[in-house]
Structures are given as C-alpha cells and as structure tokens.
C-alpha cells in the first residue's frame, strides 16, 4: 500500500484563554490508514481534528495538505477540498427531506436554468443510500421522521458522498445501533481501500483496537505516543493504552472485584406486569443491595423501563411499586427515595447554566425547607460534603456546571442523589462520555452504594460494564427480556451478544 502523507500538522498550539488545549502537536495523516485518536476528555483530540476541518483556527503552528499550505476558514471550504468531519452532535437540517440533507450545499448539481430537479436529486440520493446498503431510509422522507441513529447515518452518507480525502469521525459510533455500526465500519474500510484516510475518535477501546490501523494517544494537549497494528495486536495492549491515556496505572480494580451476587431480601423496587410503550407485561424485583443491569441494543426498550421506574412514563398497564406506594410521577419517586440519572446529561440531568451548588441541592430543597425557609448554611454544608465525596474539580461550588468537564458534570449528577440520600438509583448510561479515570471512580462509588444497601438499576449500552458491575443482567431484545444472566467470573460478552441481536 502506498504510504504517502496527505496532511501534516506542525507544532499546532491552541489556547482557550489561559488554558492550553494543544501544546505544539505534530501529527501526520497518511493515505490508506484508519488513524485512531484516543485520550481522556479534554486531552485535545476534538480540538486537533476540528482545526484540521476548519471549525476553528490554531493559535500558532502550520498545516500542509496535499503539499500545499492548509489553513481552511470554514468547514464548508474544508469539505469542498476533501477534509470532512462528522460531529458528535446531530447536524441534519430539520424539516428538509433526506435527499436535501445529503445534497445540502451541493444542489446546483441538479439544477438547470436555476430550477432544481427534485426528482433527480431524490433518485440519486436513493441510489446512494442503496449502494451503502442502507435499506430503512427513504430519500424522499423528511428527516424528522427518523431516529437520532438514522439521522447520524444520513450525515455519514452525506460525508461519504462528497468523496472526502480525509474523513474525520468524532465519536459518532456511540450514537449508532449495532447494525449501523457494522455498516459504518464497512464504509470506512472501503474508503481506505480507495487510498483515502480516516481519523477515528472514540472512547471505546474495543472498537479502536478492532478497526484502526494506527493509533495515537493524546493526554493534556500532548501526543503521548503512537501504536501500529502489530503493537495493537499484542496482549496487554489495552492496559498499555490506558496507562498512556491516564498517565498512571489503572490497576485491576476497575470494575467490582467480587463475584458475589448476594443481596438483602427486602424488595426495594418492584415492577408488577408493567406495560409501557411497546413493552408488555414486564415484571422485576429489585432488592436492597442489589445491582440489576439492563442491556441491549439502543432502541430495545431498556431506557423506557428506567423512565417508568422514575414515574416519567404513562403506563398502559401494571404498576411500579416501592414500599407499598405506587410510583406515578418523578415527585412520588423522589419522595419514596428513588433517584434517576438521565442519559441526556446536558439536557435532562443538569441545569448547565446553574452552579454546582444549585444543581446538587435542587432535589433536596423540599427537605431543606423549614417553614418556607431554606438555610444557605445547610445548603453549603450539604454541597461541601458532596464535592468532597466525589472530588469534583472546581474553583468553588458556585462555579457554573457548563464550565466543567464531562466527568465532573457526571459527578454532579451523581451527587444530586447522594445528597438526597436516595435508596434506589436508576442510572441510564452513567459512564457515557466519561473518561477512564473518572469511570473507575464511578464504578467504585457504585460498588460502595451496593455495600451501603442501596438498590441500583443500571442501564447500559456497554456490555463490559454490565458484566463488571451487575449482580443480575437482563438482556432486552425487541422490547422483551430475551435472557437473564447471573453474576459470574466466567461470563463474557460473546455469551451475551447473541441474545441482543
């Protein structure tokens, strides 16, 4: 394979005020490679790639693309020139058809005398979708009809159809369903066969190890090292990479160390023949000191069960019970000691414009209030305890949550419920978008909660997390439980995966 260089970054520095996001990074992209970029949140992966793709400018340093100076002003220009980036967040245009989205900015290809042939555009778009093997999306439909995952696929098709020289993928796969992921891996493989390059940002170690040809590890704005394919195949590679990312030994104590699935006999939360959405007749008993994991592909209904447990969904039948009380609203849930950590951290779990203190105390205000009066000293004491418990990195509890890193934000959403002293916790993807260091401490907190007799419903898309943490795992498929597993040291992802698909 021809290994010629396509893009070179020299001594790239990026400053955000006093903070250095990148301190003089040298980076090369070669044809035919799938270059993995891995690092903790804030290590500079997204900053580096967004500079390449014209989203922002470097503070200093230079770039060369196809032998010429590269200094793109906008993403549109970069895309035109063949450097295309797919972002973490959805970027389809609402209210437009799939075809219009795919050809956004390039509609002149279908115009004659200023009139765009919609029919031709839709036909072309449909052919494109078909050629990628995407069967469930129709080019003439309005994008709003499709789920987040499908819209992500439409974005990928849009990026692919412009035939980029370099495709940058920023943590897109976490949003994709299992089938779509496989499809996507196939697509980027095809790109490399055509001698193009792919830069692949992900938090998912397995994914990186499986699909990348090269790997670059970043930490605190510096490149720590590179691994080639052979090095990635070595046993012990994941440990080595983790060490490079965090800068210290993570150790074995990542997940729970015990394999004892025992728990107390008292029932903490019970689903009695619950029917909600497409889920029919779901029953479950969650005991004190027990962690029950719910797994499956996204869209299998596991999130719905979590929402129902917190009284956020209207049930079509059955009931959710705790201590003899029916849980039918977040208010009754909280009054009965249930806490809920939403997957949508920034839109549901936290008030970004509020301070750490305001976020942590919000569920507890009801109990802090004495004859209408909420004592600021009590609030302060409560917040101090939680900030210390979770080691939330901040200048002061009055700091706005939006300024925190992903991991620290997630700590705040945990702290809300420990401050409230909730006995039942429903966690929907609690470690999503959180880096390894924080993840490890999250797992330690969850294990401690179990020891303290809390009941936990852990909903996760990561099988390794469920295997590592749960006493019992329920796998859902098409809105029904397809299999139950008990905690055991022998359980592996391959045992489970067949029941998901």
């Amino acid at each position, binding site marked *: 394979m021809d290994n010629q260089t396509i893009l070179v970054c020299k001594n790239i520095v990026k400053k955000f005020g006093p903070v250095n996001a990148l301190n003089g990074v040298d980076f090369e992209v070669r044809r035919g490679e799938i270059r993995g970029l891995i690092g903790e949140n804030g290590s500079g992966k997204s900053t580096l790639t967004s500079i390449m793709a014209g989203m922002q400018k470097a503070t200093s340093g230079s770039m060369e693309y196809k032998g010429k100076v590269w200094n793109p002003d906008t993403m549109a220009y970069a895309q035109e020139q063949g450097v295309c980036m797919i972002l973490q967040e959805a970027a389809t245009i609402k209210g437009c058809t799939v075809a219009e989205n795919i050809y956004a900015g390039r509609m002149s290809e279908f115009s004659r005398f200023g009139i765009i042939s919609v029919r031709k555009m839709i036909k072309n778009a449909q052919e494109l979708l078909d050629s990628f093997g995407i069967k469930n999306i129709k080019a003439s439909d309005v994008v709003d009809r499709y789920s987040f995952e499908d819209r992500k696929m439409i974005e990928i098709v849009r990026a692919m159809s412009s035939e980029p020289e370099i495709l940058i993928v920023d943590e897109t796969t976490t949003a994709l369903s299992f089938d779509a992921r496989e499809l996507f891996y196939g697509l980027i493989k095809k790109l490399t066969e055509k001698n193009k390059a792919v830069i692949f940002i992900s938090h998912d170690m397995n994914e990186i190890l499986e699909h990348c040809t090269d790997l670059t590890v970043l930490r605190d704005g510096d490149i720590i090292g590179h691994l080639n394919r052979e090095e990635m195949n070595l046993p012990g590679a994941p440990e080595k990479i983790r060490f490079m990312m965090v800068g210290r030994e993570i150790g074995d104590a990542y997940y729970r160390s015990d394999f004892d699935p025992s728990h107390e006999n008292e029932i903490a939360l019970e689903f009695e023949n619950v029917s909600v959405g497409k889920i029919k007749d779901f029953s479950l008993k969650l005991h004190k000191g027990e962690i029950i994991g719910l797994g499956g592909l996204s869209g299998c209904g596991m999130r719905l069960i979590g929402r129902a447990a*917190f009284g956020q969904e209207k049930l079509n039948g059955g009931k959710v019970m705790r201590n003899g009380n029916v849980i039918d609203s977040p208010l009754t849930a909280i009054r009965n000691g249930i806490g809920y950590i939403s997957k949508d951290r920034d*839109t549901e779990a936290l008030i970004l414009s509020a301070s750490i203190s305001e976020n942590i105390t919000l569920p507890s*205000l009801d109990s802090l209030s004495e004859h209408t009066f909420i004592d600021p000293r009590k609030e302060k004491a409560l917040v101090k305890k939680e900030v210390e418990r979770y080691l939330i990195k901040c200048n002061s509890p009055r700091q706005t949550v939006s300024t925190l890193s992903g991991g620290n934000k997630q700590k705040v959403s945990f702290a809300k419920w420990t401050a409230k002293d909730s006995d039942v916790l429903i966690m929907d993807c609690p470690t999503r978008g959180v880096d390894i260091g924080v993840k490890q401490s999250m797992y330690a907190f969850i294990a401690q909660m179990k020891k303290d007799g809390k009941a936990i419903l852990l909903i996760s898309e990561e099988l390794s997390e469920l295997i590592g943490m749960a006493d019992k795992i329920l796998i859902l498929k098409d809105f029904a439980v397809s299999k139950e597993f008990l905690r055991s040291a022998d359980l592996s992802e391959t045992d489970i995966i067949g029941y998901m698909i």
Partner: protein
Amino acid sequence: MEGIKKDKNMQNSFGKVMAYMKSHISDVAAYAGLILCVTVFSVTSGGRLWSSYNISVLLESVCVYMIVALGALFVYSMGYMDISVGSQMGVYCLLIILIVNATGSLILAFAVVLALTLLCGAFNGFVAVWLKLPSIVTSLFLMFVFGGLQMLIIESTGQNSISVNLSLSIMLEPWFILISIVIVAAVVFYFFNFTKLGKYTKSIGANELATAQCGVNTTKWKVIAYMVFGVCVAIGTMFLLARTGSAGKSTGSSYAMDVMLSLILGGMPLSGGMKSKVRSAIIGSFTYALLSNGLIISGVDINMVYIIKAAVFFIVVAISCREKGVFLPR
C-alpha cells in the same frame, strides 16, 4: 526589577477586573445606566432633579413600577411573561373607584381586586400549562378581555373618567411609599433567594426538564408564581390609583411594557433562569422612572421622550444581551 513585578501585578488585577466586567456585563450595564441617568439629568435639569417636589413625584412613579416589577420577577425568571397586567390594572382602578364610591370601603375594594388578580394568575399559569400554550397567548387573551371590560365599565358610567370619593393622599407620603417598597422588596427578596419558590422558578427558566426530573411539580409552581405576581399587581394598583385619583379608558395600559422594560434595564434576561436577580427589578424601575421624569424636567419635548427611551432601551439591550442563547421569553 520590583517595578516590573508591580507592573505585572497591576496588569493582572486589571485583567481580573476586565474578566469580571465581561462575565457580569448585564449587571455592569444596569448600574452604569442608572448612574448615567442620575448624572446626566442632574446636570441637564439644572438641579431640579433633586428638588424635594420632584423627588416625591419620582418616588410616586418608582413605587408602582417597582412593586409590579418585583412580582413580575417570579414570572419572568421562569422565562414566561404576562402582557395583560396593564389592562388588568386599568380595570382594577375602575373597580376600586366604583366599589369605594358605592360602599366607602377601601378594604373591600382591595379584597375584590386581590381575588381577581389571584384568579388571573391561576388562569395564566394553569391554562398555559394545561393547553400547552405559550404564556404570551393566555396573557394576550386576558389583555383583550380586560381591555374590553375597561371600555364597557367606562361606557356604562357615561363619563370619560371617574374619580374616587376618598382621599388616598396618605399613600403618597414619601415615608409611606418608602416603607411600602422596602417591605415588598424584603418579602420578595426572601421568597426569591431563600425559599423553594424563587429557586424553583429560576430552575424552571434555566431547564424545565431537569427541574421536573428533580421532583418539582412545575405546573404547581408556575401557578404559584403567577399568583404571587397577582398580589404585587393588586398592591401596585392601589398606589397607581392613589397617584391618579381617577381612572379612564387608557389608565394603566402602558404598564405591561413598562414593567418589562424596567426589568430589562435592570439587567434581567427575559429568558429567565439563574441570572435573574431581585436587584434587576429595583435598579430597573429606578432607571426607567428616572428616564421619563428626567427627560421631561430637562425640558425635552414630550413627543421626543419616546424616541429617546427607545434609543436608551436599544443601547442597554445591545450591551447586556450579547451573551449567547435565547434572550426572549418563551
């Protein structure tokens, strides 16, 4: 050597001040606006601004703006609004006059008005949630209803305006006004900063979904916030009537917008949320009252006053609302 160090320190603290100014731009703009108004009008009015007569006139107008704006704070901090207060206040003035003239009881009149404001508050809060309407729609509806009522009542009297047969001059004594606004401001300050009401309304304004997930019955607190606003509207109406002594077709009509402008001048983001502060209502109503009063005593043509107000308003908004995100209420 030492000199350089000192210089650096100076630069550092200057940088800090600038950073503070930048992050508190709306507060800074609000204070600057008030100070600017005071200094400019002190000069242009040739000292008349500080005459004891003018100060008492100023106090009379400030107190209506401030009491209503303090109540409005709870509603606006949720990112909601109420544009019906103006016509509501017009009708309430007429009702108070009619009731007082018929029965002689001011307390009865106040009780009736208070009941009506609470009802309207509940309507605004509850119906908006129930029918999933933006709050502007329900308050528009109320604005038209009350506008119509005002016409009907005044037509039925057969006069252009009616006067109250009771002296309310005690309410215009400076000490009475001062005590009243201090009490209202203190009560609002307490409820806004130290109770669930204020904390919840700010949270609702910042992120309603997250607030609901913390077990807050958002509907209930919306209704309560609107009702608290109603109480302040009732009190403000009493002071308005004390000032005018009579009421006609257009009494009160400008107050909905006046209150909104006062809050904006005070640095309040109309999208509500965590940056809502009690001082916005206090500073804003002073600035707004000063603007109207100062321009007139400075001899500016009354027809120009609106244009100048518009220009000031535009400048303040342009400075204080440069932050990202939504500024307008829902």
